Structures are given as C-alpha cells and as structure tokens.
C-alpha cells in the first residue's frame, strides 16, 4: 500500500509542472494569443528558482524569483507581439530559443551544486488520515498552488465578468475593440500571468521535482503543456485531467524499468503481457513514451475538425493593431 501511495505522490509531482504551465497558457490562449515560448519561460524559471534559492538559502525566495523571472521574460514576448504586432509563432519560438540559451549561460555556475527542496506542507490532522492523508494533505506547496490555480482560473473564466471579457477578446478582438474593451491591456495581463505560471512550473522542477540545476531540465515539458491545452479544448479541469495522465506516463516509464515481473504473476493475462512487453523495451523507447503519447492524444482530439473549430479561440494567433 505504501508503495502505491508513493507512486501516486511522484505522479502528482510530475503532473504539477505540466498543470501549472498549461493553466497559464490556457489563459493566454483564451485571450487569443499563442505563446510558444512556454518551454523558454519554464527553463528561465527553473534556473532563476534554483539560483535565488542557492544564493539566499531560502527555496521560498527561489519560488518567488521563478515566477517573477517567468513573468519578466514573457513581457519580452508581450512587447513584441502586442505592441509591435510581430508574428506570434515566430516570436514564441525565439523566446524558447533565447530562454534555453540564456538559462544555460546563467546556470553554468550552478551545475552540480546541491539544491534545497521546498518543504512538504503537512496539514495538521488531515495529513494523518490513512492513504489519502499524505496524498492530499502532505504535499509540496506547488501542488496546492496548482489545484487552487485550476479552480481559480475555471471560476475566473466562466463565472466573472472579466473572464467573459477575456474570452470575448480571444474570440473576436475586432468586435471587442469596437465595444471599447482594452484588447491590448487584457492581453498584456494574460501573457504576464502565463509567464508567471510557466516560471512557477520551472521553479517546481528545480526546487521540488529534482532539487538541482541541470541544463535543459524542462525536457520538452513546456511543449507538452502547450499540447495539453489543445487536448483539453481550452477547459481548465480537462487540463487537470490531461496533466495527471501525462504525469502517469512520465512516472510509469521510469518505474517500468525497475518493476519485478514476479509481482504480476497473478495478474490478468493481458496486463502481464503488456508489462512483459514494456519491460523488454530499451530505456530509450520508454523515454519516448511521453512524446509519442502527446502526438497520439493530439491526433485523437484534432480528428474531429468541427469540434476543434468550435473550441479554438477564433482569433488565436492573429496579430491585432487597434485602429483608433
């Protein structure tokens, strides 16, 4: 039982960065902006988080720094795409390329240093409950933030006036502008929020998931977060579900290599065969699974062209220049 709880705990830890980054990007895309720089903002958050934690001795300061740096980095994207109306795809890509380079340069001095992990937060009494206690009430702070964020974003987008306004901008910036809504201002705020979330996700990687700095440690998670938003058809709780599915795949491929087939001796024939097959695969093939799974879910979700068209924010990715 303890093993199962521990595995579930690691799944939550692997899912959290995906969830946080994807929730941020969801808000950005709901406002009609496509920021492909998630990977870059995430890795900047990771290096800033580790650096600040190492220099100040406080992982909390690291978490804050990760968010601030993520937001500042996204400001660069915002100025380019919103004020200068540049191509969002290309600008987002360049944000990712710049982030990977800049983080590598800033992090040279941090390679191999031991980091400090953010402390677990045990909620009194509740965390003593059997099984669910540790799972729900004995996690790292970012886990709680991620759940709260999902709920808050779901509430904001669908239960508040500002959320409705944000969605209307994403569906038609020209109409929103004609109604007197400050399109660019809303989008700036959305992009900054997305940046802070991506930074936080990066901070989670270098302060919780593996408390150290490794170059390119985001390993494509920013891109998977982007795919999650599509997979979730721009709905917060579906992002949550998607993030945990991917957390499972990410952790599963690590655990499969260590699994003892004897444990599955009594399992149903099909499950045993699947385990046998997975265990016989080389580690590189298992490591491919999250990326292949991303492609598979994208195919499944995009197959229905009309449904996709209905869900996608209609002005996603289009530059907007107010005409007075």
């Amino acid at each position, binding site marked *: 039982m303890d093993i199962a709880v521990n595995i579930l705990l690691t799944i939550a830890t692997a899912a959290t960065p995906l969830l946080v980054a994807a929730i941020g990007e969801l808000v950005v895309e709901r406002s009609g902006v496509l920021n*492909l720089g998630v990977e870059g903002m995430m890795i900047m958050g990771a290096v800033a988080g580790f650096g600040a934690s190492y220099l100040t001795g406080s992982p909390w300061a690291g978490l804050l720094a990760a968010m601030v740096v993520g937001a500042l980095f996204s400001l*660069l994207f915002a100025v*380019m795409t919103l*004020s*200068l*109306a*540049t*191509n969002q*795809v*290309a*600008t987002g*890509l*360049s*944000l990712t*390329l*710049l*982030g*990977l*380079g*800049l983080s*590598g*340069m800033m992090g*040279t001095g941090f390679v191999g240093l031991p980091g400090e992990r953010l402390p677990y937060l045990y909620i009194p009494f509740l965390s003593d409950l059997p099984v669910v206690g540790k799972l729900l009430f004995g996690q790292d702070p970012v886990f709680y933030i991620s759940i709260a964020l999902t709920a808050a974003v779901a509430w904001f987008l669908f239960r508040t006036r500002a959320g409705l306004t944000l969605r209307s901008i994403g569906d038609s910036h*020209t109409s929103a502008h004609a109604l007197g809504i400050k399109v660019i201002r809303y989008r700036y705020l959305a992009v900054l929020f997305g940046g802070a979330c991506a930074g936080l996700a990066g901070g989670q990687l270098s302060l919780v998931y593996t408390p150290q700095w490794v170059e390119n440690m985001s*390993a*494509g998670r920013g*891109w998977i977060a*982007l*795919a999650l938003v*599509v997979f979730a058809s721009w709905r917060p709780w579906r992002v949550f579900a998607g993030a945990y599915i991917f957390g499972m795949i990410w952790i599963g491929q690590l655990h499969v290599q260590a699994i003892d087939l004897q444990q599955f001796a009594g399992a149903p024939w099909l499950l045993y065969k699947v385990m046998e097959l997975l265990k016989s695969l*080389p580690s*590189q*093939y298992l*490591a*491919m699974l999250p*990326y*292949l799974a*991303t*492609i598979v879910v*994208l*195919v499944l979700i*995009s*197959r229905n*062209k009309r449904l*996709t068209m209905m869900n996608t924010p209609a002005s996603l990715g*289009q*530059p*907007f*220049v107010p*005409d*007075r």
Partner: protein
Amino acid sequence: MRLELVKRPQRSALFSALSPFIAFVLTMIAGGIMFALLGINPFTAFNTYFVSPISEVWQLHELTIKAAPLILIAVGLAVCYRANIWNIGAEGQFILGGIAGSIIPVMFPTFESPIVLPLCLLLGMVGGALYAAIPALLKTRFNTNEILTSLMLVYVAQLFLDWMVRGPWRDPQGHGFPQTVLFNNSATLPELFPDSGRANWGFVFALVAAVAVWLLMSKMLKGFEVRVLGSSPRAGRFAGFSFNRMVFFAFMLSGALAGLAGISEVTGAINQLQPTISPGYGFTAIIVAFLGRLNPLGIVAAGLVLALTYLGGEAAQTALGISDKVARVFQGMLLFFVLGCDTLIHYRIRLVGLGAPKPDAVPAPKLEEAH
C-alpha cells in the same frame, strides 16, 4: 508614453532591405551590454567573438562547415514558412537523415565503391523526407497541429539515435564507447581544397540547394502554388491547387534537405554516428530562415552569420572563459530583433505621450485584418 503602430499604405521596400542589418546592429549593442555586465570589455569580446574566428584561411573552411547544414535546412524551412506551415522539427529530420544515410557504411563497413557516397546521400534525403512526412500526414489526415507534432518527433529522433549507437549499431571494437564504426573512404564526403582546410562538399550542396529553391519559388508554378496557398488558402483552392498535396510537398522537401544536411554532417565532419550529431542546427536554422527573409539567397548570407556565432561561441569559451551558451543567446537575440524590425516594413511606429490629445483623423486602411 506608449507605442502606436500606423499601417503603411504599402510595404516599405527600404525597411524590407534594411531590417536584417538594423537587427544585426541592435544585436551587437545588446551583446555589448551583456558582455559589459559579465565584466568583459565589449571591444575585446567582439574581437574574440566575431573577428578572430575568421581571420585565417583554415578558419574560413570551418565557417563553411558550420554554415552548410544551417543553409541547407533553412532553405527548406523557408518553403514551409512561405506556405504558412510551421515545421519546427528539422532537428529530428536532420538526425533521421543521418541515421538512414549511415545504413550502408555501418552495416557493410568493408563495402567500398564509388556508388556508396551517392547512395548514402540519397538514403539520407529519403530518411529526412519520410520523417517529415509524419507531421504532414497527421496534419492533412487528422487535422493535427504540425508545430507540436514535428517538435515532439525531435525528442523521439534523439532517443532513437541514442539507442542505435548504444545498441544495435555500436562499434564492437569501440571499447564500449557509444559510437558506430568509422566510415571508410568511399563513404566519406571529400574535402574541397584539402591543402588549406577541412571545408567539404556540404557547402556546395547548400549553395546548389539555395539556387534551386530560389528558382523553384520565384520561377516555377509549384513555387507560385506554395506562395498562394500560404498567403490565402481560399484563393489557392479557387485556383485549383490542392492544399494537402502542398503540405506534403513543403514538409518532404524541407525534410529531404534537412536529411541531406544530416548525412553530409555525418559523412563529412564526424565520419561516424555518435549519440549527438547536431549542436542544434535544426533550431538555429529557423533563425537563419527568418534573418534571410525567407529568401534562399538571403539565407546563404544569414547562414554564414549564424555559423560565425557558433565559432565565436567556441572562441569566447576558450579565450574569455565564458560558457559557449553565449552563442545561443546571440542567436536568440538576433531572431528577436529581426522580428521586431520586420514590423517597420508594414507599420510606422509613433510614440504617443500619455497626456497628448488623441488624433482622430488617422487613416485606417487595414481591410485585410478586419476579418
């Protein structure tokens, strides 16, 4: 104070030509500030970074070795981007090209014949093209976003190469190192002028590809088709052009060129397969394509500039003791500034004071964006 964009009646030819140069100068200034922050005299740094790596003939040879893959990949990407298709998985197509092209020299290491090298190059192109056909198929058949699928396939390709060189293709006499056998002479891309440096035929391929793609895009119907479908899919359909066939064409052409770049790198500069065969050429080529204004001839110049940032990064690492990641930073900044300067082609930028009265008679002829 804030920025305000005013649409030009037509695109500015002046800024269209000037913008890469302005971007380069801005990158230099930003780079100077960065070096100053690192405590290095900017002028020493520039000398180390941009002048010393190309001050001798053998260094020019190295420049072409770095530029060749960048140009080859970027001219292919330019076709995709003109068609409004976002292939960002060239790195994976490069790797698959390298693997597919290595089939003969790795599996038949003693087979020597003049046809080996052409076969290698051909297989490399086929490998890259087929790998690029996957996102094309998913896009046309299942309506899947090609940005994400092509990028995911990069990670898959890297892991696949890692497995190949550690598993089935590892050199049995290699003392356990994760690498294949060294290729024999008939599977080695010859050097152009062996007396003065290492430059190989890869650079010639790059120049030929650039000219060929330029001809294709500006003189041939297929290029016209790509451009029409890229700027207006609806107009393209009325003209009877098939969008799906164009997607396959653009993806497989750029995949084949990336694959050729991969196998040229493997048979030329490395001469065997290793766990890593590319220092991010596939991603840097995206910058090359934009800096070259998606024009194959501009891309040749841009490829040389970006190749210099690689060499400069290495020089800066040895001479100034800073991380060679500085090259990536320069590349990223350059792309940012290019994209920013491109705004000047379509818009005039005005600074508006916060308190200033709003001009109410500004012409707003931007019909094409009003949909």
